[in-house]
């Protein structure tokens, strides 16, 4: 047992750090730090830079353009990316579809799509959720009916993140409504977003933003060659995707970044004539969070290392997801508290690039209540924490 970083790991960290320092555009990191809205062009620029360096598909096997990094190296990469203020890598193509294609795609699909993911040429959306389904993914109702060389798709997807930027969407559809079990009769399709019959409508979130969408599909023609895996075997594909290695599931790097920001703010804010960081109650709240986070970082690496290269920790992921969201949400809660009355003012225009107005209070206060409310989603999406507990109860505790 040795919980310190080896010389090699430290050198790797330096390499990533230096590259980011040189190549990450200041314009982008400034926007990320101010929590400003990133455009499609911003993301494309960043994806292309990463792709050129060979770090776009860092989870993939080396033979397909991946990196071959160890779990610890991946963890270091994530930390450095977030610490540098890099835009997040939009995960739908590279983290989700990529591994699926590598495992289940035809040679033709791999040859066509994988390079386009690596280069950032395609922006994928994830067409899983449907209205009224929530965490009950298998209840999906979008229908695909075979008609010669096409499937005709009808239905509706929801919570489709960034679908308004996407040119493609991978999609779960029901191909056999008469299958004895709901999980059967589902297929996995690749759909062009410019196909006739597709309409994307924004969903406005509680803080007034547009990140997610509803996608309506009306008689959309999808070539049969866009089927991934066998017809009616989409559930297997979907499960594989859900279980594919996710180093970052606990969000350790993001929470560390949030904690660092919190400490800076608490050192600046005043309470009763001294720094807020010196207030015993606030200091205690921050310290509890920090200790939870220190423990979680080890917990995360332990589980990922134990699962081994390229494999998912299985149901243990659920433990990380639960604790990770608790810590992350607690961080946003303290950030909101830290700025006192200045958490209330809400200036949506401040999140556009180039805004140079003045905040009623400190600049950093503007995004904090939004961040808190927005982060409530962390314990809901990707299988709510209640679903995660059900999974753990069944698979780890044997109930």
């Amino acid at each position, binding site marked *: 047992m040795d919980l310190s970083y080896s010389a090699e790991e430290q050198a790797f960290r330096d390499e990533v750090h230096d590259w980011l320092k040189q190549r990450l555009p200041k314009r982008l990191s400034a926007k990320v730090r101010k929590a400003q809205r990133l455009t499609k062009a911003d993301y494309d620029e960043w994806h292309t830079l990463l792709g050129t360096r060979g770090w776009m598909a860092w989870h993939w096997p080396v033979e397909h353009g991946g990196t071959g990094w160890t779990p610890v190296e991946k963890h270091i990469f994530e930390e450095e990316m977030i610490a540098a203020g890099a835009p997040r890598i939009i995960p739908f193509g590279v983290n989700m579809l990529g591994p699926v294609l590598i495992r289940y795609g035809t040679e033709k699909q791999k040859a066509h799509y994988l390079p386009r993911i690596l280069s950032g040429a395609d922006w994928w959306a994830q067409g899983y959720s449907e209205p009224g389904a*929530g965490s009950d993914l298998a209840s999906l109702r979008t229908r695909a009916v075979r008609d010669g060389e096409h499937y005709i798709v009808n239905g509706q997807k929801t919570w489709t993140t960034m679908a308004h930027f996407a040119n493609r969407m991978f999609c779960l559809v029901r191909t056999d409504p008469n299958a004895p079990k709901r999980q059967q009769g589902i297929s996995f399709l690749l759909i062009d977003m410019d196909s006739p019959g597709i309409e994307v409508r924004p969903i406005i979130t509680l803080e*007034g933003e547009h990140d997610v969408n509803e996608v309506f599909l009306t008689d959309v023609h999808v070539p049969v060659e866009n089927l991934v895996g066998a017809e009616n075997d989409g559930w297997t594909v979907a499960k594989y995707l859900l279980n594919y290695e996710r180093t970052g599931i606990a969000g350790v790097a993001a929470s560390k970044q949030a904690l660092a920001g919190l400490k800076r703010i608490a050192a600046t804010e*005043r309470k009763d*004539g001294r720094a807020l960081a010196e207030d015993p109650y606030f200091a205690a709240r921050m310290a509890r969070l920090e200790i939870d986070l220190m423990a979680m970082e080890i917990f995360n690496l332990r589980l990922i290392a134990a699962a081994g290269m390229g494999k998912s920790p299985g149901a243990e992921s659920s433990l990380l997801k639960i604790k990770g969201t608790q810590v992350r*949400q607690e961080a946003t809660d303290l950030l909101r508290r830290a700025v*006192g009355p200045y958490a*209330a003012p809400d200036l949506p225009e401040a999140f556009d690039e180039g805004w140079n107005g003045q905040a*009623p209070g400190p600049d950093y206060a503007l995004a904090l209540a939004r961040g808190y409310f927005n982060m409530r989603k962390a314990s*809901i999406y990707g299988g709510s924490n209640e679903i995660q507990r059900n999974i753990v109860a069944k698979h780890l505790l044997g109930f």
Partner: protein
Amino acid sequence: MDFNLSEERRMLTDTAERFIRERYPIEKRHDFAASELGFSRAMWRDFAGLGLIGALMPPEVDGYGGTGEDIMLVFEALGRGLVVEPFLASGILGASPLIDTGDAQTLGQVMAGERLLALAHGEPDGRYALSHVRTRATQGAEGWRITGAKSVVFNGGSADTLIVSARIAGDADAEDGLALFRVDPHQQGVARRGYATIDGGMAAEITMGGAIGEPVGTPGEAYPMIERAIGRGILAVCAEALGAMEVAKDLTLDYLKTRVQFGQPIGANQVLQHRMVDLLIEIEQARSCIMLAASTLDAERTTRERNLSAAKHLVGRVGRLVAEEAIQMHGGVAMTWELALPHYAKRIVMIDHLFGDTDHHLERFIRFSREAG
């Protein structure tokens, strides 16, 4: 001891609740909040006509209420409707010093819905400290002149009359040496910058450079009036949070019973049932503590402020739990603007940022408990 409402109070509550239920749907509320003013003048006059503003004022200034119980009942109803009209700014915060000084004339205009008030007290870097005032007032030949900056003043942009705190003596944090002034915001020397708040309200930054002000009460001795105003405000927003929590709980309960997942209503999950029970208990605890604070709003200072801080602390603690659990149990839909629930959650959580958060009031409760011995 008597836990029952009088017949009059019951009527007041019924009237308020029925009106809000029937005339104040959430879509209208959003429209009001999104307007330049941030609320509806027409609706404000209707509320005045119903007597809901007057219910916040005592008979001494020609109101027909003004006790802790009245404030509690009115604001609980307002909280149930997420009402954005300036009850807090005009009916409580701005009105309180005028009640204390017996200014029935101005308050008559307020009760009629004709004059809007705002209390300009908080300042940059003041956080929740009640006595922190750097704004200065000096007396010259033509009267008092005020210079300074006020921060996050609720409905400060639309108020017809500002009640401004300023210092005539002492250090920035001294309780002594404070004064309140009535200030016309339309004069030269007053600049206002209004903005929206995340929970659907409006606030303003106000700067004054030699603005003319007319004293409210004796200059130098305003601290008790400020504490009274904020104390009434604390009770008001606690009750408002209570009303909002009740609705959040009811919406969640309803959702659990109707939303089907994995072939059954999600409320069939025992974990969600038990968590709802805990919400129910904590909301009733909060209500009980608010009742206590309401019943001692006119008691001597230590008892009054100790109970107010107890209520505000508990509402902060319970409010976060209720807001977060209500969102969590709703799942994804609670993240959308379209649903009413998240707007309740936002207001409940943001009330913790008014007049001191849950930690601030825990500390204050401890301080007043030591005084009480």
